[in-house]
């Protein structure tokens, strides 16, 4: 058996699983999005309606609202996570004591199930019995209605997301920092470059592939946030914390309009692909070159 055929054989179990359970649902969803399917009536007739569902989706205020809200959430949350995570990575990198233990302890939020800790945060955010308001009272500041005030609710969720995922950014940036080659930095020191200049011209350019990857990963995940919403605010108050995935859950599994939900999912998929395509292209080109020159 040739090498190529052998390779295909090895890959086949994985491909079979992914094809059947990955591609088939996609095709099913596309099919669903092109038909009129109302599951509440129990009729098994799926009329072909072309792009009607997409037209409906793009004119549905609630959907557009959820999209904008989710986009806002993702931008702010990822922005804060990245800034905090990177800054902390630089700080921790230069610590003199307990570096290992501290790094280990920062792992904890990532290991906690978002759905479960989310509910604990709901307790922390509680207007009457929550610790956060108790702390505010001690500092003589007016307590906030963290999850009940429609203007603050989304930010409360952002704070939660930042809490959980900043360590992720931190970990990877820290490891990347520690694996940077020494020579360029020594050369820069010989040339008496200022700290700021080193950062700007040396450190960040070297880190940028890693940072881009983290940015993409976190953005995709932030856009699909569901677990904490489902266990804490359920989209409320009103629709203030209704992220796109929760909205789709409501439309598809509560209102049983899976045709609309499928169309909307495909729209979202398209947006995500376009967005990450822009950022991924330069990254992938370098990947391809690395693979070819490696052996």
């Amino acid at each position, binding site marked *: 058996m040739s*090498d190529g055929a*052998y390779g295909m054989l090895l890959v086949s179990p994985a*491909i079979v699983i*992914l094809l059947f359970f990955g591609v088939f649902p996609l095709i099913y969803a596309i099919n669903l999005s092109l038909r009129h399917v109302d599951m509440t009536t129990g009729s098994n007739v799926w009329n072909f309606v072309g792009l009607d569902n997409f037209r409906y989706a793009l004119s549905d205020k609630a959907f557009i609202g959820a999209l904008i809200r989710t986009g806002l959430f993702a931008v702010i949350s990822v922005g804060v996570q990245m800034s905090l995570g990177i800054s902390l990575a630089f700080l921790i990198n230069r610590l003199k004591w307990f570096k290992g233990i501290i790094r280990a302890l920062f792992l904890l939020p990532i290991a906690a199930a978002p*759905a479960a800790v989310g509910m604990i945060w709901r307790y922390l955010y509680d207007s009457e019995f929550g*610790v956060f308001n108790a702390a505010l*009272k001690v500092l003589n500041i007016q307590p906030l209605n963290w999850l009940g005030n429609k203007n603050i609710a989304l930010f409360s969720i952002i704070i939660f997301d930042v809490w959980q995922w900043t360590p992720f950014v931190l970990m990877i940036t820290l490891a990347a920092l520690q694996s940077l080659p020494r020579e360029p930095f020594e050369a820069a020191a010989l040339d008496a470059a200022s700290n700021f200049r080193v950062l700007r011209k040396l450190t960040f350019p070297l880190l940028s592939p890693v940072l881009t990857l983290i940015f*993409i990963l976190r953005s995709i995940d932030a856009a699909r946030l569901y677990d904490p919403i489902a266990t804490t605010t359920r989209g409320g108050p009103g629709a203030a914390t209704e992220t796109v*995935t929760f909205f789709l859950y409501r439309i598809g599994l509560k209102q049983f309009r899976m045709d609309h939900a499928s169309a909307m999912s495909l729209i979202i998929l398209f947006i995500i692909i376009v967005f990450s395509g822009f950022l991924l292209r330069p990254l992938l080109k370098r990947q391809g070159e690395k693979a070819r020159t490696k052996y």
Partner: protein
Amino acid sequence: MRPEKVTHMDILRMSIVIGVLIFTLFPIFWMILTSVKPTELILRTSPILFFKPTLEHFKYAFEQASFAHYISNTLIVSLGSTIIVVITGSLASYAFARYNIGQGNLMFFILTTRMMPAIAVVLPFFVIFRTVGQSGIGQFLQLGLDRVGTLIICYTVFNLPFAIWLMHSFFQDIPTELEDSARLDGYTRFKVFVKVVLPLAAPGIAVTAIFCLLFSWNEFLFASVLTRDVARTITVGVGDFWTLRGILWGPLSAAATVCVLPMIAFALVLQRWIVRGLTFGAVRG
């Protein structure tokens, strides 16, 4: 070696980091604290820190809410899917690393599988598993709605792309000379894989297994939609305490502790590996 001077910056840096660390660990600390706090003391406007701990919430979770059952389900599902992922994934990623199937489109494909909003996939899964679950072989394999086999397959599908991506960089790092000389000695390709490559790639595979376990354990959406009581997992079980009578914070914290603590302990013990895994995927690409 001259001793390093401790500067103001060092102290400042440490203080900031410790401050952030306290904020980071606080919710988890509070969760554990509340899980052993007597109910009357939980609903107080000024939180109590010192009290006599009680195990009543854990008792409630295990007795009234069949938590032992949820735990065993979660274990079965996480371990099951991790094993399948490691086996099929290591074969596939080895093939990608050595035989370069797909020519670098791999990573893009992997990432795109993460992009689909889960909801669109849930209904097809629901339909597939409902149909399969009504067949004889489906029932034998525990596939079907509210069965563990279903969740095992789901999590395998989720984690496989990520696992392949992660493992292939570990495989790429193994020098081919070892394999070449083994082949010269007459080993078949498969024997080379099992006897030469796998032991060397074991750390990478272990890291991947850790992540798969973690993601499966913590998963919520699919578990909540595809199961009800027979195959329910802990992570969904935590939400059970948000009842029509109100949120039972005590048992809920106990449930959350049961859900979160094992994974945290896991992460702490294996932290070096987890960090390696996180960074290998990202730093080495």
